[in-house]
Every structure is written in C-alpha cells, then in structure tokens.
C-alpha cells in the first residue's frame, strides 16, 4: 500500500519527508522509518507510538510550534513543521 501517491510534504526536525494524505502525524513518521521522537523528561529515553488512540500521551510531538500534541491524533497537513524532543529540545522552552 506504500505505492499510493506520497504527496503530503512535511518536515521532521528540519528533514523533508512525505506521506500519504489522510495519515496522522504519528503514522507519517513511522512509515518514514522514524519510530521514536519524544525524549522522556527524566531519563531522556526514546518514545513513539504506544496506545495509538490518544490515551497514553507517549507520542507527544511539537506541530507548527505547538508543543505536546498527540501524534496519533493530529492529521498530517501539507507543509507541517513537526519537531521531536529526542535530541536538543528547544521548542518547549520557547512556547
């Protein structure tokens, strides 16, 4: 099913990526091989999708400057600026 047009473009931590229309941000990241994007607060351990339905808040991501969005719920839009908190987090501090 990956042969469908990958025509929604977005950036993740500055990298240009593309995904199928109608996917969530979380799905767009995972299908691009990004399995983790959040660093935990205490240990900085990697996290990505877990519950997949908005319950666990593990997949939090910054979308267009708004921090702590559930990647499993936000629908991907053209040109979205998606940022994780795994490496060198600046987004949360400037909210």
């Amino acid at each position: 099913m990956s042969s469908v047009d990958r025509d929604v473009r977005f950036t993740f931590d500055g990298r240009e990526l593309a995904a199928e229309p109608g996917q969530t941000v979380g799905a767009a990241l995972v299908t691009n091989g990004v399995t983790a994007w959040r660093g935990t607060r205490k240990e900085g351990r990697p996290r990505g999708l877990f519950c997949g339905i908005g319950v666990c808040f593990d997949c939090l991501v910054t979308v267009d400057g708004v921090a702590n969005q559930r990647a499993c719920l936000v629908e991907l839009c053209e040109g979205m600026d998606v940022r994780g908190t795994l490496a060198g987090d600046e987004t949360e501090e400037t909210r």
Partner: protein
Amino acid sequence: MSDLTVDVAVVGAGPAGLAAAVAAAEAGAVVAVVDAGTQTGGQFWRHRPETGDADPDGHGHHDWNTFLDLRRRFRAGIAAGRVHHLPGLQVWMASKNDVDGFTLRTTRTVVGGEGVTPTVHAARLVLCPGGYDRQLPVPGWDLPGVMAAGGIQAFIKANGALPGKRFVVAGTGPFLLPVAANIAEAGGEVLAVLESSSLSKWFPHWKAAASVPGKALEGAEYAGIFARHRIPYKTRSIVTAVSGTDRVQTVSWAKADADGRAIPGTGGRYEDVDVIGFGWGFTPQMELPLSFGVQTRLDADGSLVAVVDERQESSVPGLFLAGEVTGVGGAVLAVLEGKAAGTAAADASAVVLPADVLPAKEAARRDRHRRFAQAMHQAHPVPHAWQEWLTPETLVCRCEEVPVSEVTQARSTLGAEDSRSLKSFTRVGMGWCQGRVCGFAGSCLGAGPGEPAAAASLASAAKRPLAVPVPISELASLND
C-alpha cells in the same frame, strides 16, 4: 460554535454511542453527540478519513453493515435537525446541575481551531466512552515499537498502512486474533501470537460460547486467515522480555505454567521484530461515570465497571451508560446496550419499562452476549503470577518513569497498599496519562503479589477531575 441545549446528550460515537444517538433521535428526542473522533465509528469502526474515501468498503471490519446502517440513520437525524454532531471534541468535565439535567464542557481533541468550544446542556445523558487495551508491564515494554494491540489495529484502520514489517502479538483474549489477522491481511508478517491462557479454559463455558454462533463464525474466519498466512498461535505462552537499544529488536518468550509463570528452559526468541503488540483485555474509560459517583462493581475480568439497570440507567437518575463502561463485551453488545440507553433516555417521563427499550429478541441477544463476555473473561484471565515477570528496573508508570523497585519499596516501608498512596509516594499515575495505562498494574502491585486489584484502588486510579487536559485559557473564559 455556540452552546447547545438538548433532550439527550451522548458522549462517544462508537458502536454504543451511535446506537444510543440513533435510538434517542428516532424516539423523538433532540440529541447532541460529542465525540473525540473527527468522524463516527469509534475505535471499533475506525476507518480512513471519509474526506479521502467517502464510502470505504469496510475491509477488515466486522459488522460493517451495522455501522453503515447506523451512520445512515445518524445522518438522517442530522438532516432532520434532531441530531447535533459535535466531532473532534472531548468532554473535560461532565456535571449534574443543581435543579435537573447535565452539563458537558468540551475542549478540542487536537489543539487549534478558532472560537470557543461548545458547552452542552441536556436533560438526560448517555455516556459511551468505550475502553482501551489493558496493559501489564513487562521488562522492556517502554521501548519504541512496543504498542497496544489495539493501537496497531487503529494504525492500520485509520492510515491504511502498517507500523512495521515483522510483528509479534501477545497477551490474552480473542481480540488478539483480529489484530493479527489485520496485520497479515495488510501485508505484515506475524511471527507469532502468544496467548497466556490455555484454550481448555473455555471448556467450562462451552454453553455460553455456543450460544453466540457469530463468534464461532469469526473464529473460523480467523482460523482461515491464520492458516493462509501461517501464523503460529501459541497458547500458555508469554513474553518474558522485550529488548533492543533504542527500539524493539528481540522478543523473548516462554511457555507458562497454569498461573502464568514462565517455565525455565522453554520458549525462545524472535529477532528483528519491528513491533510487538500487547493486549490483556480492555480497560473501560471510567473517569466520566466516576465523576458522578455512580455505583460500581468489579467485573469478571477484574475491571471496575458501572452498575446499570435493565434500561442502562446508572445509580444516578437520568444518567445512562452503555458499552464497555458497564462491562467489557464487544461491539455487538455495545450496540444493543446503546439502543436500550438511547431509547430510555429519550423518554422524558422516565417511566419507560425495560420491555420498551429493547424488543424481547434483542434483549435475549444482549443477555447471550453478556454471558459470552463473562465466559471470555474467565477463559482469558490476567495471569495470576504476572508480577513475577517484572524486574526491579521494569517501569510501572511510563509517564513518570517509576520502576517496580520504587513501588515495592513504597509498599513495604510506607504501607502504600492502594493506588492513591502509591501515586502520592512514587508518582505512579501522576503523569500525562493520569494513570490510564498503569492504573490497573499499579493497583495490583499495591495489593501485593498474586492479589487482584481492589475496586477502591481502581476507582482512585481512574478518578480524573479533568477528564482530559484542557488549556488554561479555556478555563479562564469558563461560563457558569
């Protein structure tokens, strides 16, 4: 969006909520439906955005025709002005008014958008918030690539894609079967389904099982899919550890004894695993019912659920509940309960009799499904000895990164035997998810090795005065 005043408010648009809304509207009530999703269907009938595919064929879904029928009638209700659909909103507080009726305060599921979110006032309220996969901690379960079994299914249904190539599905219960089947049908490789229970546990319940022939047909369908894709289905088998550096790589498993204890020297490892999905039954989403102080009970699966009468009315007059919050039992049961709840809630006189909310045939069907659910819970219990899988380093609370060692220490030195004191002493359940994921496990750990979670402990873990996070700016402009 402006505030709404209606006869009946329904929270949730999954099988129970849709059925309730349709039944109430068709009985003549004006109905508002608040739903976290952007389109109807809930988790069970989650599907690709209708904006891209207005008429999906329901491949991989069960009872899809039931959904299409409910959706058609739901849309007819909207067209007739009797149904107000409020998608993309979550209720952060539900309250009973001083005089009569209920108030729902909402916030957007996804931050953004213009304007104030609506407040809904309703004479009667039907809560159908559903549930989510119940989780038990296992060493390494915090690695990326570990997912809830239902999360994998939701990923496939909503995105038309797979979150990896090589999968293991583990836990207990019949729900593991459709998850594995969905993966395989979508082109993924299922290395194994590891079921902790023994299928012989069904034998005492054959009567209840046989009374729901649809379930046998589903079983036959999965058997076909499993054979076609050569999916190994291993019973009495558990995952002992998930390992990898920054994501899942290896899944170690073992055969389990009758209590769910790993038998040394058995099992093996699956390598190069992309995703492992865990499901140990379901946890009903109880914070809204609990916020009204409804009467609760422990169900056969160990979950805290609400007590309702034949008309699905809770101990709080005018508050109706349907679906998983009254006992986990699947979509067919949820639809029947939703129909009963919606019909009863539509009646302002509140004298509608049980016989009026569901025809005898459907009531009998509902009862059969309830018996089936009880049988299922008993045949697929949470393994008695599950706490023995844990290592001191295994995280109990993923949000606050609280390891088992801290929890057992708080229990032994500070007497923290319930989820409430564990939360205060160790921060278990204090984080983003507010104990949704670790509430069950934390309650069990507080009770002690081999002990079931106490109802009071589960209630305390599921009590969430803010049902979902809400922007402070919205609180600052709150109306009375």
